[in-house]
């Protein structure tokens, strides 16, 4: 599993570079800790820059982003076509940067000793729209499972996590049974699963690692989510990248935004570790650096 971040900060450059101004970010609450960690570390370099992180969800973030309100949008899934169209209509040009990786994890109650490894098909059986009102007991998922009612918890509909999970497991963005307990607050999901033997839920890997013993992760198609399995790509289909979208104009025109984003990418490993995410691979770092370089 991943290690909680250490306390040591990078602080490589001389602090107080003299920049001022603000960097406004909004978007996924899953990605928010990543950007916050970046801002934490960045503050040691450029204490004059105000970084703010709002958490309207990935979809909500894109709305303000495409209205030109924010410089950076945090996203736990790629931008959708309609959202891109909005940006285009508003004349907003942007760059997508993968900032870290995450293993979207399926979790169950620690006392659940039957569902330790589920297939994508089983997950689809449990979570698909057709399951609504029908699949209510674990023994319907697999006859060998005990007679135990299933209760479901998961991310709220505005989150990228929701979009990603529905896309990957149910084959269509937003397609999911509705008789589950959606929450924009992942910790509520933890509470839900921890409080119910028959519960199952999904959320980011960091929550699983922080709540060992409270909830436990389920292997998907035989692979447990972890830094390694996510980085080496074996944890599929739920291993996923986390994104930040940078407003090109902001990057070019606002020195503080450029400085922050450059810092973000340059220190991605440390930032990811601090925020309990899976760091970028070498290739991903190179790609991101190149993308930025092309902006000038």
């Amino acid at each position: 599993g991943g290690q909680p971040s250490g306390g040591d900060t990078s602080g490589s450059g001389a602090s107080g570079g003299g920049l001022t101004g603000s960097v406004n970010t909004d978007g996924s609450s899953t990605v928010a800790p990543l950007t916050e960690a970046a801002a934490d570390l960045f503050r040691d370099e450029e204490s004059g820059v105000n970084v703010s992180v709002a958490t309207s969800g990935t979809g909500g973030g894109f709305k303000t982003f495409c209205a030109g309100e924010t410089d950076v949008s945090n996203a736990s899934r790629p931008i959708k076509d309609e959202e891109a169209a909005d940006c285009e209509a508003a004349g907003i040009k942007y760059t997508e940067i993968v900032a870290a990786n995450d293993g979207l994890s399926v979790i169950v109650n620690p006392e659940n000793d039957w569902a330790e490894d589920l297939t994508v098909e089983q997950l689809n059986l449990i979570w698909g729209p057709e399951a609504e009102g029908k699949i209510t007991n674990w023994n319907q998922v697999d006859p060998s499972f005990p007679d135990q009612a299933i209760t479901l918890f998961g991310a709220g509909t505005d989150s990228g996590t929701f979009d990603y999970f529905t896309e990957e497991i149910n084959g269509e963005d937003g397609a999911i049974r509705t008789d589950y307990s959606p929450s924009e607050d992942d910790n509520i999901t933890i509470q839900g699963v921890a409080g119910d033997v028959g519960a199952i839920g999904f959320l980011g890997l960091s929550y699983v690692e922080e709540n060992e013993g409270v909830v436990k992760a389920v292997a998907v198609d035989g692979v447990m989510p972890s830094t390694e399995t996510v980085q080496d790509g074996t944890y599929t289909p739920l291993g996923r990248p986390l994104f930040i979208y940078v407003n090109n104009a902001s990057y070019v025109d606002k020195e503080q935004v450029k400085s922050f984003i450059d810092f973000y990418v340059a220190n991605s490993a440390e930032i990811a570790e601090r925020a309990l995410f899976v760091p970028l691979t070498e290739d991903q770092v190179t790609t991101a650096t190149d993308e930025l370089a092309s902006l000038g």
Partner: protein
Amino acid sequence: MTAIIERRGGPASGRAPAPASSFAGRRRPGEFLIKLALRLAAAVTVVTTVGILIALLIPSLSFFAEVPVLEFLFGTRWAPRFADASFGVLPLVTATLWTTLIALLVAVPFGLGAATLLAEYARPRVRKVLKPLLEILAGIPTVVYGFFALQFVQGTVLRDWLHLPTGAFSVLAAGLVMGVMIIPTIASIAEDAMSAVPQALRQGSAALGANRMQTTLRVVFPAALSGIVAAVVLGISRAVGETMIVAIAAGNQAQLVTNPLDQGQTMTGFIANAALGDSRVGSLEYNTLFAVGLLLFLITLLINFISIRFVRRFREAY
């Protein structure tokens, strides 16, 4: 003595010729402007109400253009933001009813008990200490109550201590804590109502050989009944409108709640949870928020009017 205070119409001057203007009004434009400003300030409250109505109605109208009113009101499946959307608000309403009912079961007896103690038994000095202490309960931020309900009441008391078959959330836990929060509201109004019962009635009862309990139950309660009803009704209104406790502790699954140990999403819980994300202005999701808000507003409006009626009745009685 220096006659600084001169007599204007004294006998010395005889009947002073009284010109028609002797009382003529001084013009006081400042006074007029001030009164106008005050009136405008008062009118702001009306503007607020109109604002609420407009703010809720316009998105709601767009909402009802897409979703028939009857389907909204009587539908039993609430899944507004899913691919397979449906807009039956009854699940939210049932959850609201449950949390409200449970809250009242706590707040009414305890609130009335506390009010009776304060109004009928406590000496002024004791009351002076107890009442503010009780009011702290109403001052605790509801976020704090929410986590108390979720972690302590639901997690520790209901699950660990009582071993009740309940999950992570329940309308029971939310309702119980909400009830505690409402105790001071009910106590305060009920106490007002009881204190408004003239001392003469208590004395009359005591002079006939009734003890305090008899006086309280048989004279003061009936006499303060409308005020007590008003207190309960206002308690209902508070419970229906409370947001953070239910958003945190009642759960987020919109389902028809039949068992208080189940989770459920209330109307306010839905609005709060939906608002945590950010819906595009004008989208159906956004309008849904306001349709539920409108329903909530209308329900509390109705309740408030009932409560105001009863308050007025006890104010008028004495």
